[in-house]
């Protein structure tokens, strides 16, 4: 029986008169892949931003493993082993692939404030970075500047940065956006492998319904800042309300 990893109680956030998240209650289980879907403007990314501390809610609470993490600062989130990737590509373009992954490893090993030793003087850091690069299949490109990578590789690198702190819970905001089918398959395989081998609980926001239904163990459907439905992929496919919201769309 999977435990509840994330609980949300009455979460609300508005921007002026527009209510982006309207009193959401949600419980999500650990060790599975959950997808959050919904039409544009449903509030999916805002929900992730509120959970991960990028935005603060007007009211409501967020609990991670039973502990209140509402309004916790983003750097403290990582210490609680919660990480994320972003909807718009967010990597360190002027740094090499190796350095991109090195950045989250340094604080993990308590070395981010070392100011006189060389970057390559820490074998434990190098070993850990190589492991992550191996996992995301980018070891052969370790010395390439991140800004010079192909789009698909940049997405993989972003995932590498997100999983480098060895998270328990990882949010992925549209991991397959802008990818061709082959790259998309690579990312899906990676997510499935990491979930199975590294026991990372993934919460994925995704628009591509093929990705959602082949990847997810649980799906949450949002509409206009509220939860419309949640359930296993087959249940969501059969849900009448979901079909109405997605009328003419892929579901």
């Amino acid at each position: 029986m999977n435990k509840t990893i994330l609980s949300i109680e009455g979460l609300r956030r508005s921007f002026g008169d527009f209510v982006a998240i309207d009193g959401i209650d949600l419980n999500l289980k650990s060790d599975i892949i959950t997808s959050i879907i919904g039409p544009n403007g449903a509030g999916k990314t805002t929900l992730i931003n509120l959970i991960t501390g990028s935005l603060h809610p007007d009211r409501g609470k967020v609990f991670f493993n039973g502990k209140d993490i509402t309004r916790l600062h983003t750097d403290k989130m990582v210490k609680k082993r919660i990480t994320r990737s972003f909807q718009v590509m967010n990597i360190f373009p002027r740094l090499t692939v190796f350095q991109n992954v090195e950045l989250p490893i340094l604080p993990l090993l308590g070395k981010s404030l070392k100011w006189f030793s060389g970057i390559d003087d820490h074998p434990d850091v190098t070993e850990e970075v190589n492991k992550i690069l191996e996992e995301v299949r980018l070891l052969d490109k370790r010395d390439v500047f991140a800004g010079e990578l192909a789009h698909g590789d940049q997405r993989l690198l972003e995932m590498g940065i997100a999983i480098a702190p060895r998270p328990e819970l990882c949010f992925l905001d549209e991991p397959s956006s802008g990818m061709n089918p082959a790259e998309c398959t690579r990312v899906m395989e990676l997510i499935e492998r990491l979930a199975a081998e590294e026991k990372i609980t993934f919460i994925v926001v995704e628009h591509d319904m093929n990705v959602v239904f082949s990847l997810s163990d649980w799906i949450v459907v949002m509409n206009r800042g509220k939860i419309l439905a949640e359930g296993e992929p087959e249940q969501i496919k059969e849900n009448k309300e979901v079909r109405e919201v997605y009328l003419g769309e892929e579901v």
Partner: protein
Amino acid sequence: MSKFKELLTPKRIPSALLIVLAILLLALPVFGKDYYLYAVIRILILALFAFSVNLLLGYTGLLSFGQGAFYAAGAFTCARILLARPNLLLGIICGVVIAGAVAFILGWFSVRHTAMYFAMLTLAFGMMIFGFLQKLKITGGAMGLWGIPRAPLEIPYLFSISMKSMSSYYYFVLILSSIAIFIFYRLVHSPLGLTFQGIRDSESRIAFTGISVRNTRWLCFVIAGMYAGLAGALLAPLEGAVSPQVSHWATSGDPVMATLLGGMYTFSGPIAGAAIYFMLKEYAVGVAGEAMNWMLILGAVMVALVLGLRGGIVGSLQQSLFPRLRARFAERSSHEQNDIKH
């Protein structure tokens, strides 16, 4: 000659240039006039000042127009100490510490903001310090401090070296600057330096690596303040006088220009930029004759250089000349190997 060519691989060129430069600088007092020594000292001071700007701008992505405040803190503290107790080392250490302390206080407010807000805040703080110094009695008010002695370098009961001659002060500044530059090199190539660069590239991304962006920026601001303080502390005994003008925003603009000119994403850019900016300014002042006309000449040359060499002088060399040299070297090596085979 062929042996020399073999030794001088593209990778070794920077080291070779550094050795030649070190020999020239060490030998300069033997054949150079005092003015040349003075010029090199001013270049080194501007380079340290530019390092302060570049740590914030090139490495952390923060444009500060208020580094003059810390430059002034270093200069006035050193001047005050030397006037009260003539000990050069004490004056310089106090100058660096007080500049760091001022940066610690102003940084707390400044690093909460980024981009234009940060630039404007630092500019405003710089002008506030300028206003303060105009009124403050301990710093000599609008006239500043005069008659600052170039005190001996001494540790009581151990040694005392006179700094009266320009050559002895030149060697002192050269050694101290080399140490400061070496420390800077280690810093920017360390995990902390990489963290600064991560903040520059993506603040939102690095926040999700477990690093406190605000505290790290604050630390960077203090280190940058100390470098500006060191530059200011070295200036006071050289000139023998310090006026509030050192904290003016126009003074803060000098290292920004030197950094842009040399290349803000490069380690040696601020040094090259400081040398070229200083020489350009001296040349422009010499050519212009009439007061203020030099600004017109300098401005025009600067616009041409900044627009023509995007990435600065060192940055442009790294992007265009060095790859070409490397390619030519690789081509030559392959030809030589083919010749051997034949």
